[in-house]
Each structure stands twice: as structure tokens, then as C-alpha cells.
């Protein structure tokens, strides 16, 4: 883990990125940083196998048409840590999360500007393929969304099949992912039954298994427990602790207790701005900003 000064503000340079929305202005400019560091990052990636990866967001703005949902946010997500993003509903947590694997641009009229690095590679850089970005940065959604037409096995295998994994290899990978998601013992006898037949908590863990099956570098989670009961929530939270060994995790939650339970660091957002990002203990016990304090003490939100 690199001991970089994660919480000092970044030097903020104008760095437009190509968000390639289907009909927005194609705001492409060659990013010198990305081009220069490409080969270096490849070498670094080779060395880093076995450890996690970090992400850094630099001065990102995100829009829905005219709505300015994220306002110049910069934030670091450190390798093999869980970073929680909290804040009142509508403050832009999901929007920022979706910028991290370029899902934001799937919404018609939505666009983003700024720079987001996975290790040293700008994921919005020129020549970067969104498909490979999303394979490298997996996402778990708020509502469990297993493919309704697929069995448990096929759900986990879906991403693997796309990448040409077959046969015994596939079986092993599916089992490994289900074990990784703490679901194997519960479903090993009914792998061919429909994924939507599982309970909500199991479905969410199935979605986590599906996400980690393709071995992403980063796992993003958007309020993964908000549709679950307390016991299922606890299971997913335990799972997040487990996953931290292999993955860098970014989790959006509106539940401060959850952030306190699972996150190493927590960032507080308000109205599209990031107000404060620091160690989780500190944000709850010793917030620097008065707005953070008001929020964590329940004065609003």
C-alpha cells in the first residue's frame, strides 16, 4: 500500500475528458499524462498483481443535461481499502460512483468532465475502451439485479462467458466467485435453479459473485444493502471485509452506522461537493467541517 498523502487537495489542472455521451459534445483532448504514463502503468500493473489498485478522481464535474450534479470533486480511493461515500439523498453519491466506471454516460444527456485515474491510467483517456474500463471496475447496484432469465450458475458465468472462459475453468471460476461471495454453501445444490428464486440478500451476494467473477481491480457498490433486511445486511458487510483483501472497494451508503462498520475512510458529500474525506473514526468523532458535523449528528439529511 502506498503511503501517499491521500487527503491533501490535488493540484487541479483543467483536464477535460471524453465522456462520449451518445449526443453530447465530444470534448476529446489528448491527455498528456495518460499517454506518457501508459507504458509505465503497464509495468506497474504487472508488479502489482496480487495487491490492489487505487483510483484518484481529479476535479470532476458531472451533468445531467443542465443539472450540474457533481461540482469539481477530487478524491482518492486507496488500494485495498474500503472508502464510504455518505451524504443526504440527491447529493451526487451515485453520480460520482457511476463516473468511476463510466456508467454515468449511459444515461441520455449525461456527461462528465475531469480526470479519473485507475492507478496511473486515465479511464476517460483517449483510446480507452469503456468495455475494458467496466470489466476492470465492477459495480454492484442498489437493487439486486440478477439476470432474470438465467440460473444461479449462468448469472455468475455471464461475465466470464463474454471473456471466453469455458469448461472446467469456468466451473472453477464460478465456484471460486460464489465462495468469495459467501454464497457457495447456500446454493451449491441448486446451481441450475433461477437466480431470481433466491432471497434478496442472497441475490445481492449473487450479484457480488457475478461482479468478482471477472476479477475486477475495483468494486463499486451503490447502497448495496438498502433493499436488504438487517441480517442479510450484516452478511454483506462481513463480505465487504473479506473482499477488502483482494479488492479496492468504494461503497455509497446513506447509513452512517454502515459506513462506520465497513469503511476505512469516509467522504461526506453535499449538493454535488465533497465536503470532507478522512478516516472513518475521525469523520464521526472529530469532523472538521461544521456541515459534516451537523450531518453526522443528525441535524439534517
Amino acid at each position: 500500500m502506498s503511503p501517499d498523502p491521500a487527503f491533501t487537495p490535488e493540484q487541479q489542472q483543467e483536464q477535460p475528458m471524453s465522456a462520449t455521451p451518445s449526443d453530447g459534445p465530444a470534448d476529446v483532448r489528448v491527455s498528456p499524462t495518460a499517454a506518457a504514463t501508459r507504458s509505465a502503468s503497464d509495468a506497474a500493473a504487472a508488479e502489482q498483481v496480487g495487491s490492489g489498485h487505487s483510483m484518484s478522481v481529479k476535479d470532476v464535474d458531472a451533468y445531467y443535461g443542465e443539472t450540474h450534479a457533481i461540482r469539481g470533486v477530487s478524491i482518492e480511493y486507496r488500494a485495498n481499502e474500503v472508502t464510504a461515500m455518505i451524504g443526504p439523498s440527491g447529493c451526487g453519491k451515485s453520480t460520482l460512483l457511476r463516473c468511476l466506471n463510466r456508467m454515468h454516460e449511459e444515461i441520455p444527456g449525461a456527461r462528465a468532465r475531469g480526470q479519473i485515474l485507475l492507478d496511473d491510467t486515465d479511464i476517460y483517456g483517449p483510446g480507452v475502451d469503456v468495455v475494458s474500463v467496466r470489466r476492470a471496475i465492477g459495480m454492484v447496484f442498489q437493487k439486486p439485479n440478477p439476470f432474470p432469465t438465467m440460473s444461479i450458475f449462468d448469472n455468475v458465468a455471464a461475465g466470464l462467458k463474454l471473456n471466453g472462459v469455458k469448461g472446467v475453468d469456468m466451473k472453477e471460476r464460478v465456484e471460486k466467485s460464489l465462495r468469495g461471495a459467501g454464497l457457495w454453501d447456500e446454493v451449491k445444490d441448486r446451481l441450475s435453479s433461477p437466480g431470481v428464486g433466491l432471497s434478496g440478500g442472497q441475490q445481492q451476494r449473487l450479484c457480488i459473485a457475478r461482479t468478482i467473477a471477472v476479477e475486477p481491480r475495483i468494486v463499486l457498490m451503490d447502497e448495496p444493502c438498502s433493499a436488504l433486511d438487517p441480517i442479510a445486511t450484516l452478511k454483506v458487510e462481513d463480505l465487504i471485509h473479506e473482499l477488502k483483501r483482494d479488492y479496492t472497494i468504494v461503497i455509497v451508503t446513506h447509513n452512517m452506522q454502515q459506513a462506520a462498520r465497513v469503511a476505512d475512510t469516509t467522504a461526506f458529500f453535499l449538493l454535488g461537493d465533497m465536503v470532507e474525506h478522512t478516516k472513518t473514526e475521525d469523520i464521526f468523532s472529530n469532523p472538521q467541517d461544521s456541515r459534516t458535523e451537523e450531518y453526522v449528528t443528525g441535524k439534517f439529511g
Partner: protein
Amino acid sequence: MDAGAARLDTADRSSFERSASARRADPLFRGGLTVLAGLVLVLLAFFFVFLIVKARPALAHQGVFSFVFSNDWNPSKDVFGAWPLLAGTLITSAIAMVIGVPVAVATALFITELCPVRLRQPLTILVELLAAVPSVVYGLWGVFVLIPKLRGTESSFADSLHVLPFVGGNVAGPNYFIAGLLLAIMILPIVSAISREVISTVPAEHKEAALALGATRWEMIRIAVLPYSRSGITGAALLGLGRAVGETIAVVLVIGNSTVVGKQIFDQGYSLAAVIANEFGEAANDPLHAGALIAAGLLLFVLTLIINGVARALVVRAERRQGTRLPPPTVTAAAMADPEVTAA
């Protein structure tokens, strides 16, 4: 206010109704509308029975099985084996499906999943315009444009690809293929519109799940969109088939009206609907012949009932999932209630 109204719904509403001044007007209103709805059913049943009654003499004369399956339609000799007609209906409809359904589904997928949002509505309207063209106009176009302009292409196709089944030999001017092609164009807007409705019911969360796994657009369509909408698209295709089977005027103009079953797709033929339109004039003074035509209509009716019954069941399954009814299988009306089109 909403919540209050909803609460009224359960317990209090009936008492409010009872307290209403016009105690007799309400049951009358309700009864009238119910009777109206019932009358439509009665009328449909009446027509069906009457059709059977009128077809019966001819069916008794020929025998039901022989009417459907014997290959000899010769009204001047009072022989009514409708197989050449049924075969023509099936052949032309099959050609229409083979050509029309893939194009329609491709169009539906392109409009819902690939094209820029601002092109959705214009494209939808354009495809829908195909449905605004009356069948007699398609027939006119078929007779004076398609038949002469496609003759050469058909010939070279027949010569070079004669290894294919049902291809090869002389190309007749009017033929099964031309009729099938016209039908393909005519079913395209319906199949496309209903497919579009069905595809747009695929929840965004499934599509996002696929994309977030690192699927390409096409892979997203393949793993999230198509499996989910398969039964609905099949239903759409079947509704198109029902339409193709029943189409009369366009077909009668370009199929050649020959009672000999063709050996290949460029031969002349006939269809159930075409024979009715074509021969009913001469049959006016020949009750047996008229009966046979009515029997052909009955056969057509039953055929479309079965096809549409299955199609509806499939589309209804898609509706259930969506939680609302899909709009009518008339393209124009479908687009009218398309939330995407209306919201744009």
C-alpha cells in the same frame, strides 16, 4: 390527497355512493355499458355461427377434410378442394415472416438500444408510416413497380441459387415471392412496433448489469435484452403472421390467382383471402360456390383466431411483467401510447 382518496377507496366509498342522489342513474349507466360490451361478444358469436351455417352446404358437399386438404379447386365442376389456396396462404406468409421479422426486430433493437435518443421518435414515426399505406396502394405498387422491376433479379436469383429448396425454374410475373415480399413490408411496422414496446419493458437495471460486467452493446442486447423479451417478440412475430395470413387486396393483385399449387417461390399461386375477393362476384348466383368461398373465409377466420390466440398469450405475458397492458396491435395506436414517444 392521494393517500386520503386511497383510504376512502376501501371502506367509505360505497357509503358515499349510496348517499348519492341519483340512485337509479348509476346502475342504469353501469348496466348499459355492460350490455354494450356484452353485445359486442354476442355479435361476434352470431357472425361466427352464421358463417358456419352459410358455409355448411358447401362443406357438406365437399367434406370438411377434403375441403381443407384436397388439391383441386374447380368451381365450374363444383369441386372445392381448398389446398391450393391454403398452401398459397402459408407459402406467402412464410416468405413474409422470413423477410419481415428479422428486419422488424433489427429495427426495433436499433431504435430502442442503439440510435441516439433524438433519432428515436423520427425513426419510430417513419417506420410507423409504412402502416399508414393502405393495402390497395401496396398492391398497386406491387403490380406496376415490383413485378416489372424485380423480374430480372428474380430470374438471376432463380438461376444461380437453384440449389436452394423451392428456388429455380421460370419466373412468373405475379408470384408467391412478390406477394410474400409485399406482405413482409406490410407486417414490418406491426412486428417492429410491438417488438419495440416489448424491448422497452426490459428494465434498465438488467441492461446496466450487463454493461457493468464489461459487455459490449451487442453483448448487452444478447444477454440482457433478447432473453427477457423473447416471448414478447415471438408474440409480435405471430401477430404479424396473423396479419399476413388475412391480407387480401395486396395479395390478390400480385399472386397470379392460379389454382395450381406452385413448385417454387417464383410460381403463380392463390391464397384463401385472394380467392374470396376474386371469385365472389361470379359466385353470386351459385350458392354452392358462394358457400365454398364463405367456407374459405371460415377457414381463414379460424386460422387467424388460433395464430392470434397464441400471439396474444405471449404478448400478455410480456404485459404482465410490465404491469400494464401493451397498446393495441395496430401500429399507429401503439406508437400513440408509447411513453417514450409521447414523453420526448
